[in-house]
């Protein structure tokens, strides 16, 4: 509908030091109001210290069909994970 307020995706940093996490979406006429609405809708229970808003139409995403080629190759690269390497106990914590 042409006069529907745009849809915004909301990302909230729950605590200092954490990344912003997607928490949901809402409608707002512009970015400023989207931030204010996000404050009122998604931090009613003291859930945030910082808010990002992105208009939903500006988000690009991977296509579900590409899941194989995009993500499966990394499954074979186990050496990227620290537990791949056995370190002698005498060396201490690493």
């Amino acid at each position: 509908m042409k006069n529907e307020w745009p849809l915004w995706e909301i990302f909230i940093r729950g605590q200092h030091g954490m990344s912003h996490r997607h928490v949901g979406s809402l409608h707002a006429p512009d970015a400023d109001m989207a931030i204010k609405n996000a404050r009122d809708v998604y931090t009613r229970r003291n859930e945030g210290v910082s808010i990002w808003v992105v208009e939903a139409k500006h988000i690009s995403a991977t296509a579900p069909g590409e899941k194989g080629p995009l993500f499966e190759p990394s499954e074979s690269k186990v050496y990227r994970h620290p537990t791949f390497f056995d370190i002698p106990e005498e060396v201490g914590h690493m």
Partner: protein
Amino acid sequence: MYAQMIKTARSGVKTREEMNDQEREFQDKIDNDIKIEPRDWMPDDYRRTLIRQIGQHAHSEVVGQLPEGNWITRAPTLERKAILLAKVQDEAGHGLYLYSAAETLGESRDELVRLLHEGRMKYSSIFNYPTLNWADIGAVGWLVDGAAIVNQVALQRTSYGPYSRAMIRICKEESFHARQGYHAIMKMAFGTPEQKKQAQDAVNRLWFPAIMMFGPTDADSTNSDQSMAWKIKVKSNDELRQQFVDQTVPQIEYLGLDLPDPNIKWNEERGHYDFSDPNWDEFFNVIKGNGPCNVDRMKDRVNAWEDGQWVRDGLLAHARKKAAAKVAAE
């Protein structure tokens, strides 16, 4: 059960043999509890059924603001007023989360609202009953939200990712609702004789409407099988209703109130309480629009929407002017 009698977009359950490869792959994911996400392929019927169910659920939250909102301006203490207002505000929030989940399926919130206002979508039958005394506010929180929680806890496992996540968020918030309701009605039940009378009146009036919230008996619930196979619905109406009755009867007894149904009795053999069926004629009448408050509820929602048109248009027009001015300045 804020979504009742959702007509599944197809009749009967498709067997594996009837499915094509894509459908079989889809069903395998569901059977393995892998969530379906917005951009994944899904059968049209699954999408349509979900839109109906999530939409009705969202409408129920928003219409559900009205019976409790009816008492915000009459709450007897500042603290009760704040608690009730926060609670009704949460319902608006839940409506918002659910509309957002429906929007991931390609149906806009405005469109869903239009369908509701045109009478083409429904909301839960419970909200067509009036709140007549202050104890009703306790009873609604405790019984109505309590019934909703039984269903929503099950729905946290639903197969559609955004719906499941909305349910998880909502369940976290709902436990506050049921507890504040029980706390409010405790004050009434343990208060003066006049307060106790109000508490009894509330339980008597709201008991059957509350157990109707789970929808018709399984035998009459023709649309359930495919929804269960798709894990849009996770437990049957009767299972959920029994669970609610079992958890609620001791709570009524604790309040020292008379049970609202003389047939409520512990059945040792089944390990459950027996209870009377609600009057299903009444239920179907309320669904059809003949409940005590159907007309008023819809009028309130339509008025709020129509009276708000100039506000939505005005704020959007200003935002567009600001954006245009910014572009011109760059």
